[in-house]
């Protein structure tokens, strides 16, 4: 078996058995990255940094001081700040920015011995659903280079689908892990809000931003999630819970598992090709012994309007730090301080972050705060309460991730509202803050991948990953590799 198609557990075994060194593994992936530069998935690659980390990993393995992840390569979404690679959030505003510290997630995985391959393209400040909002160009979908890889974690989804990185970090605010995972046929996992630290994750919407993973299987995700998450005193919404083994339910059959199927996720707008693949996947779960339960999430359709108040409001506050004073882009010519700030922001920020800052500034402005922001927070609670009630009737919730398979470049770029609808099925879970994931479940129009969404109650990642793994034992969609990357 080629190494780029091996599971992380298999790579880990080979590393510790010294059948391959961390340096050899890093070199093999760096060569694949180089061979597929046309995907435009990486924004910064520094072989000397990667190989130095790999040599350290080899020394740890030789000294018997390795964790199961020591020596395994990983690529990081360019939303996580890193000391040794540029951190740009795919924005001109942060072109060339070198962070004085590593994000906690990066540090945790580094402490486990993982080797960083580089930084991944994404939508600017993680705002977008197609990766077309990057200041550094489009990322191509490895399944079809005319299709978007999804967003905002489009670089993360593309490199894992193309097997040019065995695992990648990603972030999800309204669907930015699950939607690109669905569009590229990879496994995208968003844990419970507050489990992974937000420290060093360039902030978009602080009450929603959640770090997660792109992998080629639920089993791989379960292996990396444990070392990645954990209490961080530097993040004021970090959850203080003991560490867990997220692999503990992988071997558990789904017999008797109650899977809730929300009727609102199968309404108008859902394309027949996606619906057919998702229904077939649900049938597979039934065949494996799970029970399908009809449930209703009547307020879920309010998710998009609520999200487009809450997320822009928080983004307008978070992005106020980009003023051209301490770091980031500064305009070449300007008058007074206010003019310098306004011109620097006009030049440094792209159209989508600007649009969201303007929405957020408006909904937070005097006289509108209650009608928009407080009302949105109230409806957010209604949505979260419906999930709580649904989980009294079922163990997991399943449905589509997206209404359609990956769309083409430019198809939605001129119409923000059409683009926002891409996240119809992912936003409700983000607002509630529950764990959720996308697993590949077939192919739709033009041979483009389809994702099945699984959602679990708060802190029930292990149960969700277990059910995903059982599906992946029975099917091989997750093992399919696009032509040209095998």
């Amino acid at each position, binding site marked *: 078996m080629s190494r780029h198609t091996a599971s992380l557990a298999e790579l880990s075994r080979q590393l510790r058995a010294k059948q391959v060194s961390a340096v050899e593994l890093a070199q093999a992936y760096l060569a694949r990255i180089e061979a597929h530069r046309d995907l435009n998935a990486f924004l910064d690659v520094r072989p000397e940094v990667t190989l130095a980390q790999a040599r350290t990993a080899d020394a740890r393995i030789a000294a018997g001081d390795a964790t199961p992840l020591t020596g395994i390569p990983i690529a990081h979404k360019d939303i996580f700040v890193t000391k040794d690679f540029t951190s740009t959030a795919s924005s001109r505003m942060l072109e060339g*920015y*070198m962070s*004085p*510290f590593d994000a906690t997630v990066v540090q945790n995985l580094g402490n486990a011995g993982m080797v960083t391959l580089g930084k991944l393209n994404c939508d600017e400040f993680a705002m977008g659903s197609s990766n077309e909002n990057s200041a550094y160009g489009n990322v191509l979908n490895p399944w079809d280079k005319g299709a978007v890889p999804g967003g905002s974690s489009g670089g993360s989804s593309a490199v894992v689908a193309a097997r040019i990185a065995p695992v990648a970090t990603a972030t999800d605010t309204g669907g930015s892990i699950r939607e690109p995972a669905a569009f590229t046929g990879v496994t995208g996992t968003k844990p*419970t*809000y*507050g489990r992974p630290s937000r420290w060093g994750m360039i902030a978009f919407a*602080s*009450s929603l931003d959640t770090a997660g993973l792109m992998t080629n299987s639920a089993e791989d995700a379960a292996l990396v999630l444990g070392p990645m998450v954990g209490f961080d*005193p*530097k993040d*004021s*919404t970090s*959850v203080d819970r003991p560490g867990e083994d997220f692999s503990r339910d992988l071997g558990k059959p789904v017999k008797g598992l109650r899977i809730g199927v929300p009727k609102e996720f199968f309404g108008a707008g859902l394309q027949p090709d996606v619906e057919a693949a998702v229904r077939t996947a649900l049938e597979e779960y039934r065949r494996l012994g799970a029970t399908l339960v009809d449930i209703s999430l009547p*307020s879920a359709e*309010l998710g998009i*309007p*609520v999200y*487009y*108040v809450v997320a822009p409001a928080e983004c*307008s506050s978070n992005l*106020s730090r980009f*003023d*051209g*004073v*301490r*770091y980031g882009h*500064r305009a070449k010519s300007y*008058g*007074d*301080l206010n003019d*310098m*700030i*306004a011109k620097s*922001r*006009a030049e440094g*920020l792209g159209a989508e972050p*600007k*649009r969201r*800052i*303007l*929405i957020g*500034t*408006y909904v937070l402005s005097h006289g509108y705060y209650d009608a*928009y922001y*407080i*009302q949105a*927070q*109230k*409806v*957010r*609670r*209604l949505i*979260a309460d419906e999930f709580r009630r649904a989980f009294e009737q079922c163990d997991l919730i399943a449905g589509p991730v997206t209404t359609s398979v990956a769309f083409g470049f430019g198809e939605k770029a001129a119409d*923000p*509202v059409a683009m*926002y609808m891409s996240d119809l099925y992912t936003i409700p879970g983000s*607002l509630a*803050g529950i764990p959720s994931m996308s697993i590949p479940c077939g192919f739709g129009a033009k041979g483009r991948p389809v994702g099945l969404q699984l959602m679990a109650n*708060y802190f029930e990642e292990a149960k969700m990953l277990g059910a995903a793994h059982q599906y992946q034992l029975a099917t091989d969609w997750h093992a399919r590799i696009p032509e040209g990357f095998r």
Partner: protein
Amino acid sequence: MALTLDDVARIAHLARIEITDAEARRTLSQLNDIFALIAKMQAVDTAGVEPMAHPLGGAQRLRPDEASETIDRDAALRNAPAQQDGLFLVPKVIE
């Protein structure tokens, strides 16, 4: 309720983003589309519902008021667009 060009100019000023007239016109129609979408949640009856600030509820944890992480001055200044004598340089604020 639809926004006007004056609203866009006022919001852009509050957000400290310079905007040209052409951009303001383009932005105006996009913002009105987005606010038409948002209007759907404004009609919902939320009497008696507690606003949800973030998913895990409860009060935000506070840390003790003491110095914790520090960044050394050179590292903090490394990305500065303009600096002098260990300080960030900006246009004169007080005449």
